[in-house]
């Protein structure tokens, strides 16, 4: 069970959270202007990397806020968590 630092509540166990998939996939402002392929890209294409992954979590059974996280998908360790709207931290 992972231990996740909620940017609002601090360290909490995984079972209080829901996973929300890849982060920073911004819903297009005007979906109608997108071609089918571009729209499919937004809907379905995922980077699914082996390594650092920017992803969304929601502290569902806590403060109920969504937030973003960087996690290494090989070790499952979190490198950072940050609030919605904040820049993806530069780990370098």
């Amino acid at each position, binding site marked *: 069970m992972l231990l996740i630092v909620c940017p609002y509540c601090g360290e909490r166990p995984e079972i209080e959270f829901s996973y929300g998939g890849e982060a920073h996939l911004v819903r297009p402002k005007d979906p109608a202007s997108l071609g*089918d392929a571009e729209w499919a890209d937004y809907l379905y294409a*995922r980077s*699914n*990397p082996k390594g650092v992954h920017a992803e969304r979590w929601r502290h569902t059974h806590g403060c109920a806020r969504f937030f973003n996280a960087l996690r290494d998908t090989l070790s499952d360790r979190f490198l950072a968590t940050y609030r919605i709207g904040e820049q993806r931290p530069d780990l370098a």
Partner: protein
Amino acid sequence: MQRFSALSLIRHSLGGHLGWQPQWRSPEPKAEYDAVIVGAGGHGLGAAYYLAKEHGMRNIAVLEKGWLGGGNTGRNTTIIRSNYLYDESAALYDHALKLWENLSRELNYNVMFSQRGVMMLAHTVHDVQIFKRHVHANRANGVDNEWLTAEQAKEFCPPLHIGPGLRYPVLGAALQRRGGTARHDAVAWGYARAADALGVDIIQNCEVTAIRRGTAGAVEAVETSRGAIRTRKIGVSAAGNTSVVMAMAGLRMPLESYPLQALVSEPVKPMFPCVAMSNTIHAYISQSDKGELVIGAGMDAYVSYSQHGALHIPAQTLEAICELFPMFRRMRMLRNWGGIVDVTPDRSPILAKTEVAGLYVNCGWGTGGFKATPGAAHLLAWTIAKDEPHPINAPFTIERFRDGVVIDEAAAAAVSH
């Protein structure tokens, strides 16, 4: 290839088993192959076998970053069935099931395919509707599936607790008698041995690290941890690692890779005669030839490549198992492990050509591709050899997501009312 049979076993026994030959070679990679398969799981090894056997391509290699069969092929709960809801899926999985029925003899390798029957339990009125729909749809598709009352389900699987008093009593079950299990490792080994005998080079400890494309965009070579290999055709069959490999060709896939866990109990004498599955309370179970209860646990919540998962996942599974089989509370878990499953948005596979010339992909089998092994392998070989899909895998393109055609087996089971 040395033939395997009772007779050869006896003969070699008398010779102290000194005469057995390697079941496959460990060749050095050549500079060039007519086709390269990435991933020596059951699907990749099988594809190489069928390419050699049915399409006459002999100069082919299967590249494997670890040991052959060590991916999901070596870590799955071995459930085989074809009673899928949609016509496209039923055709695909039944194609595989028919190949399973003769696979041991085809490969001269006993894969211990055991048609013990797969029983899917219904616990709610909604489940009953869903599974009856499966039964009708399967029959219309020529796939066997039958409805059992709760009492018939109990008779078919005596350890099953059907209620009343159960939190979710069993209301009935859909049974596919042709379904069952097979010995996972033997499938990989059997295909490897048969492919090797046809001249296929199986190269282990050889990780593909890059895909080189020519000026026209077509594939030219793969780079590997053991050097570059030229080829015009690449079949990617890398399961949980597909996104990573496809990114080497510049493609972003509609895939996410999740840990999926499983566990086995200590072995006991035969007492569980079939495969039982419950979607509603999330459990599936069978007993292997060695006597362990083989139990599928759930998926962890997040994308991961670690082949590890959290404790609460198998714990939840065992809650469900103990609810359905309360006499198993004193059974003990012997080992737990994880694999990495590649999941598509509609939970159906992709088995297709890609927009990159010479690049073919077989992926997205998620939690259920072992049962497809011979079929997927057979169709992948066809698609690579002919540069076009077989009618059975024609619907399973990447473009279906762009166009809005989904083959949504998961949604078909979604509960909502």
